[in-house]
């Protein structure tokens, strides 16, 4: 099992340099001969906010799916806090302190907003089937504890008044907030946000930006987003993907000025400003 040895060595060296963040090394994913990700690497330090940008089909969501274990890479390794994620199953992520929001909404349509968040607060726990079947007071107490947590999380995002509404009865922006509350209620250390600003108006987007900035330092955030304003204002660093390849990474301003990025992402061939070559290339 040479792979396992490799993994152990990697995690050993990771813990030696005291790494507690997210390490993505040489991820390659092929779908039926189509390259979705080619040798993509990214390090995210604890408390950092890192954006992943790129045109549609660049592999951003695939990268998230690799981290979450929905997609197994043909090559490469993902490590979270020094632990290889090779064998992690999607449902184990919550227990590892990882939360993710989905593109679009991803709320449970038959559950109220509060119940949606309660699932997020509760998910990783297992015990208690007996007391649930017997309806013991213990189960009731646990339920009211979860509901309190859920209402707090909804309150933090300013949507506590819709706690008992079904998602379909809420405007899109509020549904997005409920989805974010469900991700945050588990108090994750790593938050993966997949297009959190999709479909939001300017006000909601700037509030979202502030909220993400507010998480920085405590929560490691990886953000896939199309809205450049948001990415540029909240991210410490940005990784640019194009056709599955990492074409640039660095500080937002540097990346924005990178000619390769302008060409690939914005479809602009020449920049009016003189190109600032150098460390922006990843």
């Amino acid at each position, binding site marked *: 099992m040479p792979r396992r040895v490799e993994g152990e060595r990697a995690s050993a060296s990771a813990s030696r340099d005291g790494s507690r963040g997210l390490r993505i090394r040489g991820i390659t994913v092929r779908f039926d001969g189509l390259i979705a990700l080619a040798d993509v690497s990214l390090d995210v330090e604890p408390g950092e906010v890192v954006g992943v940008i790129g045109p549609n089909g660049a592999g951003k969501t695939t990268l998230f799916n690799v981290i979450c274990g929905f997609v197994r890479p043909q090559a490469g390794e993902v490590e979270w806090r020094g632990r290889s994620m090779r064998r992690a199953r999607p449902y184990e992520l919550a227990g590892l302190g990882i939360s993710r929001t*989905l593109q679009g909404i991803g709320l*449970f349509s038959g559950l109220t907003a509060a119940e949606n968040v309660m*699932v997020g607060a509760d998910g990783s726990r297992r015990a208690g089937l007996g007391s649930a079947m*017997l309806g013991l007071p213990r189960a009731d107490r646990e339920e009211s504890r979860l509901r309190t947590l859920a209402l707090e999380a909804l309150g933090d995002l300013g949507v506590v008044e819709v706690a008992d509404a079904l998602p379909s009865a809420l405007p899109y922006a509020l549904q997005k907030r409920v989805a974010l509350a469900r991700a945050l209620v588990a108090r994750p250390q790593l938050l993966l946000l997949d297009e959190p600003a999709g479909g939001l108006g300017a006000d909601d987007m700037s509030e979202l930006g502030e909220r993400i900035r507010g998480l920085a330092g405590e929560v490691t955030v990886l953000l896939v987003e199309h809205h450049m304003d948001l990415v540029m204002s909240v991210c410490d660093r940005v990784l640019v993907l194009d056709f599955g390849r990492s074409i640039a990474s660095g500080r937002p301003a540097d990346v924005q000025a990178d000619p390769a990025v302008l060409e690939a992402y914005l479809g602009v061939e020449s920049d009016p400003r003189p190109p600032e070559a150098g460390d922006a290339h990843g």
Partner: protein
Amino acid sequence: MTARATTPAPAGGARELAGRAASRGRRLLDQTLLRNLALAALAALGLYLLSYWLGRFDNLQLATIAYYFVAIAGLTVLTGLNGQISLGHGALMAIGAYATIKVGESAELPLAALLAIATIATALVGVVIGAGAARLRGPYLAGATLALAVGLPALANRFPDFLGGENGLSTAPPVPPSSLGVGFALERWQAWIACAAALITFVVLANLVRSRYGRAFRAVRDDEVAAALAGLNVARVQVLAFVVSAACAGLAGGLLVVVTSLAAPGAFTLELSIALLTAAVLGGLGSLAGAVWGAAIVVLLPTWAEDIGRELSLSTSVEANLPLLVYGVVLIGVMLAAPRGIQGALSWAGGLIGRRVRGHTEPRSRGASAPGEEIT
């Protein structure tokens, strides 16, 4: 489903005391177990009185409704709350029925123990089937469970010495305890047993549905990816739902033996499986109260239709087909008038009346995408 302690407040100094008692009562009813037990006790009282009022045949009908309820309630949890369709619950009932008789033949056990064994045995089979079912979706799951419904009862013909072949296995009917007096109607005793089991099933399922497990069932039904990301082991939740549902079907099969004293392949046809699912849909998928309506309809409707046919003195060929016709008409009618089933229609009407009475309108969130009437 909500039992409310709405006693009109008496006048004078007793008012405060009564108010405090009422709020204390409400707080007690906030507890899942107490509320469901109170509901079950109320139902038990009603059923007790009913069993004395009904004749022999009608008590047998009551017992039949009760075991249908047990099976349908389990199925409505599986299909309505967890989104797994099963056309094979009739076969699971067969397992419970045969287990009840085979174990009863080989060991001298009280009936309650036999029924418990039948329930557990079917639940264990449910683990195996559920593990397979968790890998299948929609039409594939329907197909696989359909195969179960067709194939499993046929095993009786494959092992005629052990399972009795086409004639099945028979057993003695339960004997009413002598403490109830000589001449206590057997049918009433059968109705009591079946209703008691149905009430226990109701309490356990009602507790479960309201718990985090019920929420997990529904979350997995609505979005498997989001459920996994929230930390739910989707396959495990699906297997659990299947096992709970199978246990109910097994108990229902055992109760069928209590009522009919027989377990034979002819009792567990594909039609039974489909009738169970139909009843769950008619009553309102995912609703335990709906399972009561569904059970009552599938048991009573054919009898009523037969009675009508006799009274109208139709020709025999028409009369023979009348139950099927009435069944079809009711099915189409209910589905057109109430797509969420009878319970869905009832709670919609209840909500409508409730809003009228309270006279308050729901605050609509600004900019809402006009959700229309929300039925919950």
